[in-house]
């Protein structure tokens, strides 16, 4: 028999929200939704304080991301252009978040996402992006190089942890620096574009996107990375839920001692998990640097690598959840430029909003507690009224 929770009497909106927040099944959806609403309210308050119209700002984010029409478009531009561009940057975000999720499920924090992305992007650019290979050879090679580079770095971090007990956060931050400086050195010495001061643009054939498609009057860039990212979601979900390897990774992540006792090869599992996490970092890197931006700014790590941590957390460390959270956070990030130029606030406000969003979703347990308190209070009141 099942314990029946007392429903809050009356079916008002407030009552429904309270019930949903404290429901074992619904709360995992209700809490993010409530967090988002609270974030929007808080952001609106912030914008009001700055003397701006919150509604214009919010629609600004959506317009900038291709979810709503802009009042005017430049030549060859349209809402579809914006939306495809949104998908182009959504792909690395989602891929990186998947890498974070694999790490976290295995009990590790791969904070070196940005470094792994950069390394993979750089290797792919240099070896394929600057070669004259045709698209059918180049694109798969880019993906392969992304997988290998990211995977190798992840594996090294995992190995250092297992063999020498070096914490993955320490080693991956070190790797971030090392990679960033080495890549900067090579770009500045060999691959610099004199005008932009970034690396020379990689060939269209190598990019994980198809450029130059026209549709009506607008010129489109079709992002291929998003297909990779969505396939990745289901792959990771399958890996974690349905495979022996995933079972072992989760066991090691939750209780390393018990996993060892049960006969799991803990070292192998740690190295594998970090390698897989790195593979997704590498894929994020190639879709980011060889597909979306197509060149590399020396000495700069992609902030997307860190935002992906927020995406993973907001999505409740689940691959499916990450789809939604990456869309949400990418809307704020991607739409921020258009928003800031139309509303006239600095685009960094997007990062503030992401921060607020994380703050609220981190309070999920507390929200649930409040909901329970409130419900019990209402139920008590109803009982008393019933007696009288």
């Amino acid at each position: 028999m099942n314990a029946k929770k007392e429903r809050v009497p009356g079916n008002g909106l407030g009552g429904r929200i309270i019930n949903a927040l404290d429901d074992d099944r619904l709360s995992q959806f209700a809490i993010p939704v409530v967090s988002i609403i609270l974030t929007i309210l808080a952001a609106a308050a912030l914008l009001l304080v700055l003397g701006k119209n919150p509604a214009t700002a919010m629609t600004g984010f959506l317009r900038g991301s291709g979810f709503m029409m802009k009042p005017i478009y430049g030549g060859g531009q349209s809402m579809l252009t914006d939306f495809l561009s949104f998908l182009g940057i959504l792909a690395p975000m989602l891929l990186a978040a998947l890498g974070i999720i694999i790490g976290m499920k295995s009990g590790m924090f791969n904070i070196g996402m940005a470094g792994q992305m950069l390394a993979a992007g750089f290797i792919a650019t240099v070896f394929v992006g600057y070669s004259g290979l045709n698209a059918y050879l180049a694109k798969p090679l880019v993906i392969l190089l992304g997988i290998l580079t990211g995977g190798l770095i992840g594996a090294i971090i995992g190995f250092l942890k297992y063999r020498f007990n070096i914490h993955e956060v320490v080693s991956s931050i070190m790797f971030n620096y090392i990679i960033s400086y080495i890549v900067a050195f090579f770009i500045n010495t060999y691959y610099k574009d004199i005008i932009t001061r970034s690396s020379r643009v990689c060939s269209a054939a190598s990019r994980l996107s198809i450029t130059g498609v026209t549709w009506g009057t607008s010129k489109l860039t079709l992002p291929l990375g998003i297909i990779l990212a969505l396939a990745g979601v289901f792959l990771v979900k399958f890996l974690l839920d349905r495979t022996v390897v995933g079972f072992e990774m989760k066991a090691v992540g939750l209780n390393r001692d018990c996993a060892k006792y049960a006969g799991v090869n803990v070292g192998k599992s740690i190295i594998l998990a970090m390698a897989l996490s790195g593979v997704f970092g590498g894929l994020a890197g190639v879709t980011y640097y060889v597909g979306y931006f197509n060149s590399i700014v020396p000495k700069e790590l992609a902030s997307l690598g860190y935002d992906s941590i927020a995406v993973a957390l907001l999505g409740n460390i689940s691959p499916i959840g990450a789809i939604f959270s990456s869309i949400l956070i990418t809307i704020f990030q991607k739409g921020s430029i258009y928003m800031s130029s139309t509303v006239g606030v600095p685009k960094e406000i997007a990062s503030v909003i992401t921060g607020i969003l994380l703050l609220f979703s981190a309070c999920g347990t507390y929200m649930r507690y409040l909901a329970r308190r409130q419900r019990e209070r209402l139920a008590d009141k109803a009982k008393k009224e019933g007696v009288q």
Partner: protein
Amino acid sequence: MSEYIVEMRHITKRFPGIVANDDISIGIKKGEIFAFLGENGAGKSTLMSMLFGMYEPDEGEILVRGEKVKLSSSNEAAALNIGMVHQHFKLVDNYTIAENIILGIEPIKKIGGFIPYVDCKGAQEKIRELSKAYGLEVDPCQIVETVNVSIQQRVEILKMLYREAEILIFDEPTAVLTPQEIQYLLDIMEELRNKGKTIILITHKLEEIKRIADRCAILRRGKLVKVLNVNETTTQEMANLMVGREVVFEQEKSPANFGEVLLEVEDLTVRNEDKFDVVKNVNFSIRRGEIFAIAGVSGNGQIEIADAIAGLIKPQKGAIKLKGKDITDESIRRRTEDGMSYIPEDRQRLGVILDFSLEDNLAIKRYYREPFSQKGILKREGFQKFAEELIDRYDIRSGQGAKTTTRSMSGGNQQKAIVAREISLESDLMIFVQPTRGLDIGAIENIQKHILRERDKGKAVLLISLELDEVMSLADTIGVIYNGELQKISPAEELTTNQVGEYMMGVKS
């Protein structure tokens, strides 16, 4: 005013899939030791957690000192002078004892009348006084993680006293203690009662109730069976009421029928992290059909012997042979496959993954094989079917069957799950470390029966237990360990309990 200091009326509490407390009414008098007796999962902790404000009852009411109260947090309970020592301690490991005790109600003083600071000196003084008054010796400056469980428990008790608790709830306080420490604790409880405190003791150990409790309420599967005056009843009666059938204290044991030697341990030496030999040149062997028990006071190297055989620690020197094959350097998984089961001492850290479901934990040594998986892909039906079988056969109780999160199960049922898993491996060698610790007599009887059955099936059993009674009633051969050395190995019938006790203390050799 009513004669009761605490009264619980028609209390019902439900959890998903289970009625933990079903219409329970109970009254506790001031200045008595009132015991709750019941099997694991009977609902004792839940009932008392409601008195301590951790849960609120679904139905029913609670009266404290004759007044109806609504306890929705432990702070409210503390305000009514109710304190509780939980089954699993709730201390901050890297804080000092004093800091733990004052946490939440820090005495604040002000420098120069306005800069606030925590008056640690004063607190330490008060703690010293309390410890003296109740015989609870602690050093307030020590860090909690550096002291043993018995002292941690004293800290928990001092925490209650520091908050001026009058009603003290102890949830299975003796489960983690050695026999000597239990003695000491029971003395303290009597002392507390003599000083006018009301004590509620949750336990499933009959001797403890017999020794110190005045009255005793028996719970069974969420229902109140009876409240007894302890001096008017017998342990047998209490046991029968608790389990709901006639309980057998002594296991029937058929005559031994030894086969070939299965496990050989030669010159085993184990060195710990401090480069200290905790196991020294230990030699023994176990035959099929034999229960070899290692008796000893806790911390004399017996756990390390088990860990070394199971492959969790590398021996410094020596050899371990299973069925004639040297397995000293084999991986843990290979040993399992060679035929070794191991029930570890620390069940929550080693034995299970608390955040896994019950079915995952039951399959954790075999998930990579059929019928749990095929070509690296898990087969969930296999997990479920296997789990349901074991749940049924070993009476593992949980709210949502195979899918229950292990963390939400009571400790006793977690233990049953581990035992079930390990026995179901059908290994030739079974290592049982404290297999019945923390279990109620019904479950103990059941598990001991299983151990004997395995022996009769021709398995070799290594039993490591701190309970001398258990060793004496199950073992065919007894090895007594003291200070890392096996003092004496001898057929069980040639030793008396007293002799074993003397070897354990190292007084005889």
